């Protein structure tokens, strides 16, 4: 039974959301933060395959959830230090925040806070705060995922791009040398995605069903990483199909699993298996 939850409840979790299985051996931890995207809280297990890079992901914030970020108020001086993952940074001030270097300075994609920092040669660099309650990838990085495989210069195929909030951060990470192919089927979200892509030259918006990669084979080249956030019961098959078309040999994929979506009647452990 899918527990229903109203939006905007993400705010009552602090950033270090409750942790479940702390699998020291595997080195990964999962986020059980509640999100707003129409489902209830759930716990995920970290599954096999280091080589494949599969990570069971907790439900990070969905869209429309209020930002739980109370600490980052305007006027704070922040120090930016690089994160373990390349392309991602941490802003250290009164509160720590995960940030990415903005490709479009002066612009907020989803009203996120931006931090402007002056570096050595006097140039102003802008960083955008990555909200882990709205972005599953952000939540995973915050919870200490081993490897996201998304690095500057990488080519990423992002399935389930929605309105482009996470895609914008991925685009920041891969930078101008990389490419993000963002696939989204919904019209309304697609509109926002296209508007976001207008400002970023490395995002290629594709308004197509991810189940039929042959339909957009003309637009996509070979990619290094596939990030899948489609929340469908046959998401593994979708991923496999897309990988067969577009993933390079030796490439990686990152999959976000929502146990309710796989089979709402099974207990979540079984779904992930």
């Amino acid at each position, binding site marked *: 039974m899918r527990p229903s939850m109203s939006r905007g409840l993400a705010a009552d979790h602090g950033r270090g959301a409750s942790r479940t299985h702390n699998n020291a051996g595997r080195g990964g931890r999962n986020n059980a933060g509640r999100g707003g995207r129409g489902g209830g809280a759930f716990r995920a297990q970290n599954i096999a395959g280091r080589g494949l890079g599969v990570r069971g992901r907790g439900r990070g914030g969905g869209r429309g959830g209020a930002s739980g970020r109370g600490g980052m108020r305007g006027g704070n001086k922040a120090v930016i230090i690089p994160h373990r993952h390349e392309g991602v940074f941490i802003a250290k001030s009164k509160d720590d925040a995960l940030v990415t270097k903005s490709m479009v300075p002066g612009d907020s994609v989803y009203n996120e806070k931006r931090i402007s920092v002056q570096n050595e040669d006097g140039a102003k660099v802008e960083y955008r705060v990555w909200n882990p309650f709205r972005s599953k990838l952000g939540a995973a990085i915050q919870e200490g995922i081993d490897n996201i495989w998304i690095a500057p210069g990488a080519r990423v195929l992002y399935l389930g791009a929605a309105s482009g909030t996470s895609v914008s951060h991925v685009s920041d990470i891969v930078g101008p040398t990389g*490419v993000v192919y963002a696939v989204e089927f919904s*019209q309304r979200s*697609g*509109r926002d995605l*296209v508007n976001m*892509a*207008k400002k970023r*030259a490395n995002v*290629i*918006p*594709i*308004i*197509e069903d991810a189940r039929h990669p*042959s*339909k*957009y*084979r*003309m*637009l*996509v*080249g*070979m990619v290094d990483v596939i990030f899948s956030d489609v929340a469908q019961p046959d998401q593994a098959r979708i991923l496999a199909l897309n990988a*067969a*078309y*577009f993933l*390079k*040999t030796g490439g990686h994929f990152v999959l976000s699993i929502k146990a309710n979506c796989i089979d709402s009647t099974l207990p979540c452990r079984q779904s992930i298996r």
Partner: protein
Amino acid sequence: MLLLFETPGGFALFKVLDEGKLSKVEDLGKEFSSPDSARKVVKLKAFSKFENTAEALEAATKIIESSTSKGLRKFLRANCDGEMLGVADSKLGNAIKDKLKIECVHNNSVMELMRGVRSQLTELISGLATQDLAPMSLGLSHSLSRYKLKFSPDKVDTMIIQAIGLLDDLDKELNTYAMRVREWYGWHFPELAKIIQDNIHYAKVVKLMGCRDNAAKLDFSEILTEEVEAELKEAAVISMGSDVSDVDLMNIKELCDQVLSLSEYRAQLYDYLKSRMNTIAPNLTALVGELVGARLIAHGGSLLNLAKQPGSTIQILGAEKALFRALKTKHATPKYGLLYHASLVGQAPPKMKGKISRSLAAKSALAIRYDALGDSQDDSMGVENRLKLEARLRNLEGKELGRSAGSAKGKPKIEAYDKDRKKGAGGLITPAKTYNPSADAVLGQTPDSTTRKFEVESLSAEEPAKEAPASGKEKKEKTKKKKKTDEETTVPGERNGTAEQDGKGEAKKKKKHQAENDGVQNKDENAEEGGKKKKKRKHSEAEQEESEMPSKKKEKKKKRKNED
């Protein structure tokens, strides 16, 4: 065997050099690991580039539908002779077979070949480098997305927002230039500024006349009326302005030209705005008119943004300063913002403006949502709603007239609950309790008969009972308002209007059961109020009586005040 590969730059046809390798599907991947080994497996046979993005878009849409485009057919016919063709989509293969009689195949080995080719695309197609491919892909994806999202250039509300901004700018500029013309020419002919009031006429006259000595000879009938022309000619003779040289006059004339051309452009822009509004938001235009509709959209930022606002917001869009000030100081909030300029609100009597503004805001919210998110293009919904609103306005006006005409049967005039109606002099909590002889004559009523009627009919007493405490409350409100009248810079008549309208509105709209409850409550309050009044007034009267009498007195006082 040939392989059909689609790229954002065009169609590519590869020849498979070594068909034997196809049998070992798993090893095919290794073959493509380096460009040289890849070239040993496949070779580019033909490449047909897309001429422009339109062609690319057409080809892409056909691919999505698994059908062949003309360009593809031509390409295949020219280059694929007799061989088997490997395609990525079996449906496309069927289509090609039907149209072109070329045998198509789609299996694992073909897919593996595709993968390999895709990974080494830039090496295999010599003319296409990575940096060329990326912008092509980007451009094609954006056009494809626009096509998929049914982006129509007609329905872009940015045009409206820019046009209305430009209209305002033009008005300002036009005014500035016209004033400048007046000032400048006034050095030569100062009286003309007072004779001709309209800016455009002034500019035309100056342009025609130049030096004021020419005034007598020229004919101004196209621009001015007879009397004005006569005045002009008279003033030209006795003008006290000094002479100016031709060069100066020429410059003044050029400025006049500018003014005239700007005003023409403004008229043209207005027409353009009207036509755009009718295309983009026909229902909104039908309800409030083009100009107000455009201002609403510009204020909201976009049509979609505006569609997300509730009707109450739309009612006071544009009066934010007054709204927040009123909220902070706990006063009555404004009743209309931009909507005040709509024709429906304009043609309503002042007391009805608030009500109509609210109803209009509600209906226009619906119209906006219909325009922004709905599919159809016609304005039937807007027109229908406008008719409803006009009917409501007539209804309201009818009720007003009916009330002021008085009751026909000679029954006691039951005063509607009107908490904000001005009663009594300002500054007093209760009106001065002096005996007013003219109150007797109103409807031939005596205080005694009314009192008895109240005791008998408890239900009907609700309304007058309501008004007693209401009058108490409203007196307090009145004093507060009177004290702060200086601060008011809101729309004229707003405050007064609010008071009266709300009271009357409440009276009309309260449903029976609700009213009854209030009646019960009010009776209790009434007792209290009566007690208070007893302490304050000079002579004593029966409780109920007193509530009716002062109300009558207040009504009379109010009428007198209105007359003033």
